[in-house]
C-alpha cells in the first residue's frame, strides 16, 4: 500500500510538533523515519494512526484521501502499528491480545477461543513468527512480546506497518531477526515505516530514509548516498562527534565490591542472582544487557533503594549491604537513576531545590534546622552556569525543562559533592545528541578525576563507547566480562545468554584476573 502524507501540521498550544510534513512510502518499501526525540516522529505517527487529528494536511492511501477519527478506522484501512511501549494487555494470553477488537465469536458474542488459537498458529507459521497462543504475555521476553505485536497487526491484515523504535528492547541478534522479518514482509508487498534514532540500523535496513528535525522534514535520502556522519548532522543540524574521546584508563584501588549479591524484584523473584563485581577508581565499568535482566534492581540495590536478599556491597571496604539511600549518598555514591522523572527529580520542585535534594539539610544549605535559601539560590546560579543547564530561572519547576536539561540537573547535583562511585543507569536515554555528548564527556571527566564509574545501559553503542571494561548481564547474572574491543556479535550472544561464560569468568573477575580466559579481564588491555 502506498502512503502519502501531504503538508501535515499539528500544534499543541504554542508548540509546533509537525510543520508542513511531506512523506511518501511506496508499496513494498522499507522507509526509515529518522530523528531525535522531540523531532516530531511520534506525533506524526499518532496523526497517521488516528490517535491525533492534524490541524491541516492530508493523508492519502493508494492515492485516496482518508481521515481517521480513531485508531479503529486506521486499522480497518490496513494500517498496523507496533508501538514503542507495547500495546499488550499483560495478563491476557497471546491469542487474546492478538484478536482483541476483532474476536472470532460464536452465537451471543461467545468468544471462540479455539478458532482464535488456531488462527494464531496458522498466522505464526505463515510469517515464521513463532509464538504459543496460550502463553500469558507478561511471562514472555520482550522480543517475543514484540512478535506478538507484529502478529497483531498482521492478523488485522495490515498492509502498512509502522514500527516505532522497535529495536530499543532487543539484543543485536534479535534486531537482525527483526530486520529479516521486515524484509520478508516488504517483499510480500507490505510497506514498512520504521521509526528510529539509531543510524547504524537505518543504513542496514532502509530502502529510503527521511530525516526529521524540530517538526520538519530535513530531507530524504538513501543508504547508498548517505553515511552515518551525514545522517547525524542532518538529524542534529550541525556536525557531531560520534565517538567519545577518552584516554586509556588508569585503574587504581578497588572502590565498589559486590560479592554474591542477590536481589529480588517487587514480585519476589530473584532478578539479581549471585553477582560478583569489582569497580576500581579511575575506570568505567559498563554493564550491557537487554532491559529487564536485573540491571535496574542491581542499581537500586547499590544505591540503597532496594533491600539485598543476600551477599554484600562494599564501598572502599565499608559494608553498605543494609544501607539506606541516605547512607549510600553520605558514603560517596552518586546515583543517576534510570527514570529521571520519577526517581531522579521531584518534578514539581524548582530547579534550585532539586539541585540540593541530597544535602538540603546540611551546611551550608541549612543551619539550626532551617534552610538557607540564599545559599540554595546562589548554588543554583553557579550550577546552571557550570553544567550549561538551560532554564529561564532557577526557580521554575524542574518539570518545565527538556529531558537533556533535566538530566544535567541530576548530574550537577550528584557530581557536586565528594564522591567515590558514580552509578549511572541509562544515562542518556531519550536525550538529544548534543546532550548525549555532554553527558558522556562529564562521565569520562569523573573517571579521569579518579572516581569509580559504573554505567548501566541497554544501548550497546553507549556501552562500547564508554566502558573500559564491559560486563554483560543476562537473567540476573553476568554472562561475561570483556573489553570494548570485543565484537558486537559476541557481546550480543552474551546478552542473549547464548554464550555463557559466567562460571569461569565471574570467579575470575572476583579474584581480579584470569589469564587463561580468551575474553580478557585484565586492566591493562583497554582499547579506547
Amino acid at each position: 500500500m502506498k502512503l502519502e502524507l501531504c503538508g501535515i501540521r499539528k500544534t499543541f498550544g504554542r508548540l509546533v510538533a509537525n510543520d508542513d510534513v511531506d512523506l511518501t512510502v511506496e508499496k513494498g518499501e522499507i522507509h526509515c523515519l529518522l530523528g531525535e526525540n522531540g523531532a516530531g516522529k511520534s506525533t506524526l505517527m499518532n496523526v497517521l494512526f488516528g490517535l491525533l487529528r492534524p490541524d491541516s494536511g492530508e493523508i492519502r492511501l493508494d492515492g485516496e484521501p482518508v481521515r481517521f477519527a480513531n485508531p479503529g478506522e486506521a486499522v480497518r484501512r490496513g494500517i498496523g502499528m507496533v508501538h514503542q511501549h507495547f500495546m499488550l494487555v499483560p495478563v491476557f494470553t497471546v491469542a487474546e491480545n492478538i484478536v482483541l477488537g476483532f474476536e472470532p465469536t460464536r452465537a451471543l458474542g461467545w468468544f471462540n477461543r479455539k478458532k482464535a488459537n488456531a488462527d494464531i498458529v496458522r498466522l505464526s507459521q505463515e510469517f515464521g513468527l513463532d509464538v504459543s497462543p496460550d502463553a500469558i504475555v507478561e511471562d514472555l521476553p520482550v522480543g517475543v512480546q514484540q512478535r506478538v505485536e507484529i502478529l497483531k497487526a498482521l492478523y488485522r491484515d495490515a498492509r502498512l506497518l509502522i514500527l516505532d523504535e522497535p529495536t530499543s528492547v532487543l539484543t543485536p541478534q534479535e534486531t537482525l531477526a527483526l530486520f529479516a522479518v521486515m524484509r520478508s514482509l516488504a517483499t510480500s508487498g507490505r510497506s514498512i515505516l520504521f521509526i528510529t534514532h539509531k543510524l547504524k540500523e537505518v543504513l542496514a535496513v532502509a530502502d529510503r530514509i527521511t530525516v526529521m528535525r524540530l517538526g520538519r522534514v530535513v530531507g530524504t535520502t538513501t543508504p547508498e548516498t548517505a553515511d552515518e556522519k551525514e545522517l547525524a548532522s542532518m538529524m542534529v543540524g550541525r556536525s557531531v562527534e560520534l565517538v567519545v574521546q577518552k584516554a586509556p584508563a588508569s585503574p587504581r584501588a578497588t572502590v565498589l565490591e559486590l560479592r554474591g549479591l542477590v536481589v529480588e524484584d517487587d514480585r519476589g523473584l530473584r532478578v539479581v542472582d549471585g553477582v560478583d563485581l569489582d569497580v576500581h577508581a579511575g575506570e568505567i565499568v559498563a554493564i550491557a544487557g537487554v532491559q529487564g535482566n536485573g540491571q535496574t534492581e542491581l542499581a537500586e540495590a547499590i544505591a540503597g533503594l532496594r533491600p539485598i536478599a543476600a551477599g554484600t556491597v562494599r564501598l572502599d571496604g565499608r559494608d553498605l549491604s543494609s544501607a539506606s539511600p541516605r547512607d549510600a549518598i553520605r558514603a560517596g555514591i552518586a546515583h543517576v537513576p534510570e527514570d529521571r522523572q520519577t526517581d531522579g527529580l521531584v518534578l514539581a520542585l524548582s530547579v534550585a531545590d532539586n539541585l540540593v535534594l541530597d544535602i538540603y539539610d546540611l551546611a551550608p544549605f541549612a543551619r539550626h534546622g532551617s534552610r538557607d535559601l540564599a545559599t540554595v539560590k546562589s548554588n543554583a546560579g553557579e550550577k546552571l552556569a557550570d553544567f550549561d543547564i538551560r532554564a529561564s530561572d532557577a526557580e521554575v519547576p524542574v518539570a518545565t525543562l527538556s529531558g537533556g536539561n533535566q538530566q544535567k540537573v541530576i548530574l550537577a547535583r550528584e557530581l557536586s559533592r565528594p564522591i567515590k562511585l558514580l552509578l549511572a543507569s541509562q544515562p542518556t536515554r531519550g536525550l538529544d545528541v548534543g546532550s548525549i555528548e555532554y553527558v558522556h564527556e562529564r562521565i569520562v571527566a569523573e573517571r579521569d578525576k579518579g572516581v569509580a564509574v559504573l554505567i548501566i545501559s541497554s544501548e550497546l553503542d553507549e556501552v562500547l563507547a564508554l566502558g573500559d571494561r564491559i560486563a554483560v548481564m543476562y537473567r540476573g547474572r553476568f554472562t561475561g566480562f570483556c573489553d570494548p574491543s570485543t565484537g558486537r556479535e559476541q557481546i550480543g550472544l552474551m546478552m542473549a545468554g547464548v554464550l555463557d561464560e559466567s562460571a569461569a569468568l565471574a570467579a575470575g573477575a572476583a579474584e581480579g584476573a584470569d589469564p587463561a580466559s580468551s575474553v580478557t579481564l585484565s586492566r591493562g588491555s583497554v582499547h579506547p
Partner: protein
Amino acid sequence: MSTVALAPSDLEAPEARLIGAARQRGMGVFLLLAAVVMLFGFGFGTPAHEETTFTFTAPPAIAVSPLNMAARPVSIVLALVCAIVGLVLILRRKGRGTYLIFSFGIMLFLWSFLTWAARGNSLNFEAMLADTLISTTPLVFGSLSGIMCERSGVINIAIEGQFLAGAFLGAMIGSWSGDLWLGMLFGAVAGGIFGALLAFLALRYGADQIIIGVVIVAFCTGLTNFLTQEVLTPYQTTFNSPATFSPIAVPLLSKIPVLGPVLFDQNVFVYLAAALLLAINAGLFRTRWGLRVRAVGEHPQAAETVGIRVLRTRYWNVILGGVIAGIGGASFTIGSVGEFSADMTAGLGYVALAAMIFGRWRPFGALGAALLFGFAVSLQSFLAVLNVGIPPPFLSMAPYVITIFVVSGLVGRVRPPAADGKPYLPE
C-alpha cells in the same frame, strides 16, 4: 546455570502464580492458629459432657432429626482436622484449589464455634443458613456492582450510596404504587443515576474516583435521611409501608432436606442475584464483551488502539454497576423488612467492596467472601439469643472486624485490574 535460574517461574500456569506460595503458607498458618483456638477455646473451653443440638426446620415431606453432639469431643476432632488442613496448605506445592481448601478449613472453624456457642442448648441450624443467605444477597449485588465498575477500570466506592438510594426509592415507589416490581425498577434507576453521576465526573473530568465516591455516599446518606424525616415518616402509610416480595418455592428442588428450603424457597432478589452472578461471570470470562471490558480495565491505551471505545465501555459498565447496586439496595426494603429507615444499609456497601477485593475481582470469589460476611451478619442475631457471654455490641462488630482483617492482612497483596481508578483522557 544462569539460564535455568529464572526458568521455573516462567513455566507455571498463570492461575497458580496468582496465589503466591507465601500467601498459601499464610493461609495454612491462619488455619493452624484457628485450630489452636478450636482446641483450647471451644474444645476444652466447653464443660465435659455438655451437649449441643442443631435442629432443622422439617419440610413437610422429609423430616430431619435434630443432630445431638457432645460438644467437647466434636470440637477437638474438628480442631485436629483443621490443623491437618492447615498443614496441607503449608506443605503442598502451590497449585489450584487453594481457596477451596482454605474455605473448608474456615467452615470447620465455624462449625466448632457454633458447637461451642450453642453448648447446652439447641440452635436452629437451618434457620441460620437461611438467614445467612438473606444477609449475603445484598452483598452479592454490591460486589457484582463493584466488579462491573472496576473490571472496566473505574473504582466504585459509592456502592453504599447506591444501596441507600435503591432502598429508599424501592420502598417509596413500592409503597406508593403498590407494585413491588415498579419499586424494584425505581430502585435500579436510583442506583443507575448515581452510577451515571460517578461515571460522568470520573470519565468526563478525570476527577478522583475515591473522592467522588465518598461524596456520593455522603450525599445519598444526607438526602435519604432528610426525605425520611420530611416525607416517609409523616406519610408512613402512603410512602413507607411497601409489601415485600414473598418467597417462591422452586418445584422439587425446594423439597430437598435442609438445603432445599434454604436455597430454593427464597424471594426474587436471591434468584436474581444468582442469575446475575452466573451471567457476569460467564460474560466477563467467556465472551467478547468481557474480553473487551477487561482489556479496558487493564490497558486502556491498548484497547483504544484496536478500536475499542474505552470511555463508552466505562460509561456503560459504571451505569450498569449502579443499577445492580440499586437493585441490591431495594432488597433491603422490599425484599426484606418492608420499610425504609435512615442509614439502614449500615456500611454494608463497603463490606461488599471488601468482598469484591477478597474475591479478587471475580464473581465467584466475591460470592465466597460475601457468604462469610453474610454469616457474620446473621451470627449476631443468633448469638444474642444463645447468650454466649459476648456482649451484643461486640457481636455486631463481627462483620466489620472481619472486613478489616480481610482487607488489610489475610488476602495479602491482591492484584486489581491494572488501570483501576486511573483516569483515561485521550489527547
